[in-house]
């Protein structure tokens, strides 16, 4: 297993970081938390740019183990970092930037042309970094990091400095990263929608400590985490494509033997997809609902009832097959039904979003 294992302690003035977590060998691990939680510091410490105390290991490579007095400098770790500000080399052209790390490695499983093509960097090669837009800069920074043939890619809020439109332009490139490079990717962000779109695994960081870690779908469906207290709280569920309704332009999806319909083009039948269902878009009924404009109804079992962030609301966990979704309802309706664990309910879902 190519797992990244991190165990780091670091003190900067009043701020103390004490984090122990791991990331799987494949896919994207989101390091998620509010501003000031220490995400960037932790990422920099993994890269060796900050000196923490503890241990950093990737597979059989050990980069830092203070118990043995081992600290490998960043230049010898063989990782790639994309910073919030691209930090391009202004004295070099885009090509010069891309070639910087490329020329300093000998084994190159990632071809120059492949990276340039997948990030659409061809038209930029002769340009100077000063003339690039924010989004173009981040693409160059991403290409530069990949071409150094890293065995671990660290992304530090690469979209935070961009406006909404440019963010949406870059996201598809980031989604393609795991296909391009089969390495663990750690993605630092405080934007939950980016996590939902990009990550498979999640580490929650709060005030310098790891409060939870695990598969994205598991963490998002847990009503006891701070995640569930957000207005945009909601579960991400894995579904299979069952078909496409040509007439109504709907994708037909399967979830634990039940059907879901989502507007938009359907990928190939049998493909596995993820949908996000916000807790605020789900209402619960005891009997199969009478016909209404609500298209999606899932039958499930109440697994938990937890106070929500607002005193007038509760967060209800509903198990559908092996997966869970969250419903935020008023405490009054919860008491009237009454909603309690074990109860069979029909979750009426106002909106379902395909997230990849």
């Amino acid at each position, binding site marked *: 297993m190519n797992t990244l294992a991190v165990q780091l302690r670091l003190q900067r003035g009043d701020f103390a970081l004490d984090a122990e977590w791991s990331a799987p060998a494949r896919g994207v691990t989101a390091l998620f938390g509010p501003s000031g939680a220490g995400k960037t510091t932790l990422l920099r410490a993994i890269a060796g*740019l900050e000196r923490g105390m503890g241990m950093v290991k990737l597979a059989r490579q050990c980069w830092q183990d203070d118990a043995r007095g081992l600290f490998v400098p960043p*230049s*010898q770790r063989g990782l790639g970092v994309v910073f919030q500000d691209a*930090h*391009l080399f202004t004295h070099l*052209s885009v090509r010069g930037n891309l070639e910087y790390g490329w020329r300093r490695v000998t084994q190159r499983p990632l071809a120059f042309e492949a990276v340039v093509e997948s990030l659409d960097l061809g038209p930029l090669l002769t340009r100077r970094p*000063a003339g690039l837009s924010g989004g173009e800069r981040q693409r160059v920074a991403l290409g*530069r990091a990949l071409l150094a043939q890293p065995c671990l890619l660290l992304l530090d809020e690469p979209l935070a400095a961009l406006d909404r439109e440019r963010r949406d332009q870059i996201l598809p490139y980031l989604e393609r990263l795991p296909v391009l490079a089969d390495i663990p990717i750690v993605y630092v962000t405080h934007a939950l929608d980016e996590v939902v779109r990009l990550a498979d695994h999640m580490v929650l960081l709060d005030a310098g400590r790891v409060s939870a870690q695990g598969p994205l779908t598991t963490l998002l469906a847990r009503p006891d985490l701070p995640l569930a207290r957000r207005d945009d709280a909601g579960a991400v569920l894995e579904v299979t494509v069952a078909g496409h309704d040509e007439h109504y332009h709907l994708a037909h999806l399967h979830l634990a033997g039940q059907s879901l319909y989502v507007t938009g083009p359907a990928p190939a039948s049998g493909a596995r997809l993820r949908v996000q269902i916000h807790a605020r878009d789900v209402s619960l009924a005891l009997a199969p609902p009478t016909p209404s404009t609500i298209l999606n109804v899932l039958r499930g079992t109440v697994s938990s009832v937890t106070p929500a962030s607002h005193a007038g609301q509760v967060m209800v966990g509903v198990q559908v097959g092996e997966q869970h979704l969250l419903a935020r309802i008023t405490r009054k309706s919860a008491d009237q039904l009454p909603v309690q664990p074990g109860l069979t309910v029909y979750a009426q879902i106002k909106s379902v979003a395909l997230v990849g």
Partner: protein
Amino acid sequence: MELTPLWPTVALTLQLAGVTTGVLLLLGTPLAWWLARTRNRWKAVIEALVTLPLVLPPTVLGFYLLIALGPQGPLGAPWLQLTGAPLTFTFTGLVIGSVLYSLPFVVQPLHNAFGAVDQGVLDAAATLRAGPWDRFKSIVVPLARRGFATAAVLGFAHTVGEFGVVLMIGGNIPGETQVLSIAIYDRVESLRYDEAHVLAGLLLVFSFAVLWWVYRLQRRPDVDARP
């Protein structure tokens, strides 16, 4: 009217300024880099020492140098033992004096240029497999090239314009320690104003040209590209 040959004096001045500039770049680069990056508590002390020649009368610096470089001085005595030659009233002595005297003119522009190199860019280079020396060569030097140019030009020009220190430790030996500024003083003392005119005019034009070039360099936008 017969003019004393000017060429030996001009050549000596250029040679002194050239050697001094070379030594200053070699010493000033690591010093300025340290000053730009360190959080050491001695930084202010070192900065003050480096800047001292800007405010001290050259005679004060020259006086202490004369004592230090003299045959019984802490530098002059071991040098005399080692090489059999004194340091005072020699070209080597002039170089040592000029290096100290022009130090701030080289260290300041380099310090500014190094300070302007973003740490984030250096971090990025480090993660792209560049070790410290590699980063310095491939990132810092190209980004600070104007600082190097300014430092070299100012160091050179300031050494050419030096008078007090040279007079104190080098005297006025034609062909050995007589540089332009002293040659002018010498001509004026002996009332050879026509020769003084030529030399003074040369220095005036040279100094103006140098400063004009430095200011032009600082104004020019960053255009030179490398693939």
